[in-house]
């Protein structure tokens, strides 16, 4: 039988490792309005308006969201403490850091994107003979609804949904610590719904179908 806690942890961990855009280790400075660079391009690195970014190598490493992108300048909501240019710093945008995980509270901020997680279970059954010791399959979905800051366009949602679907590409295998595994399904692949704008937010739902395999064990 499938250990749902392990399945959930594996799917969540994979999603949390998502990278949508990154500067890599770069020479960056913090300005009153965001971040600046003298070489390379924030646009080429994949940053778009509405993404949240996690800074490393700076004094101020609070997560923030992008309000404007230029090749050498990122403007953010709220601004930063000014810090001179330094090397080995990174700015990374991935799965929004504000996450409404299953049965956990989240109070969204109007200037930060966030995601809602769910993991509905699908059909299941023993697939091989003899059934008492056969292979047991459990289907399920990993569903992430990505909320974007109002009026920031479709870029952050499109890029985020695409990156998430790629990270869970069909036939990606996630091994669990109990020796069982999850395969992202190929007969029904990952999909993203249309963007819905409502009540000051825009959102897209990404559906990632998986199938977990384990062995049926009949208790004595």
């Amino acid at each position, binding site marked *: 039988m499938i250990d749902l806690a392990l399945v959930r942890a594996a799917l969540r961990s994979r999603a949390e490792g998502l990278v949508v855009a990154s500067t890599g280790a770069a020479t960056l400075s913090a300005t009153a309005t965001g971040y600046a660079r003298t070489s390379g391009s924030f646009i080429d690195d994949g940053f778009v308006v509405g993404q949240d970014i996690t800074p490393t190598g700076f004094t101020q490493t609070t997560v923030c969201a992008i309000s404007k992108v230029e090749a050498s300048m990122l403007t953010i909501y709220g601004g930063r403490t000014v810090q001179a240019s330094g090397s080995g710093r990174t700015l990374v945008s991935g799965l929004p850091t504000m996450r409404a995980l299953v049965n956990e509270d989240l109070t969204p901020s109007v200037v930060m994107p966030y995601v809602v997680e769910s993991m509905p279970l*699908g059909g*299941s059954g023993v697939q091989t003979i003899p059934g008492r010791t056969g292979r047991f399959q459990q289907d399920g979905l990993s569903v992430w609804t990505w909320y974007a800051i109002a009026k920031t366009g479709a870029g952050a949602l499109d890029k985020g949904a695409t990156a998430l679907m790629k990270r869970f590409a069909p036939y990606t295998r996630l091994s669990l610590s109990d020796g069982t595994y999850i395969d992202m399904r190929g007969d029904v692949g990952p999909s993203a719904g249309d963007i819905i704008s409502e009540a000051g937010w825009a959102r897209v739902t990404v559906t990632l179908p998986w199938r977990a395999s384990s062995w049926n064990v009949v208790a004595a």
Partner: protein
Amino acid sequence: MGIGAQMKDIAGGFTARLSAKNKRIFVGVAAEIQRSVQSGSEITGAKGQPVDKNVLRPSFIPEFIDDVTWQTSTNLPYARPIEDGVGPYGALTLRSKVGGFHSVKLTKAGYGRIVAHVVSEDQKR
């Protein structure tokens, strides 16, 4: 009757039986999809639509478009948030004692299981 005519009769009978079987399976799969989306299914794991005033569940209208196309659809604006389990302010709370979220997605993901089930049942005829 010559051997050619006999073969033609056999082939014609086989084709007719195959066509009838295909139709039974097609109709059976459509019925199982409808059940899964509306009321839930042990085959797909879908819980079906939640029920408050019993408006959403019967709003899914099945329709045969042609010999090989069938669809079920609803035009209720709140069907989508119920399907995704989210609204404009985040995750929804399920208050209905029956049904759940994601029934269309789970039915789609369970399509192969539905077909396998219907074919298996048909073979028992």
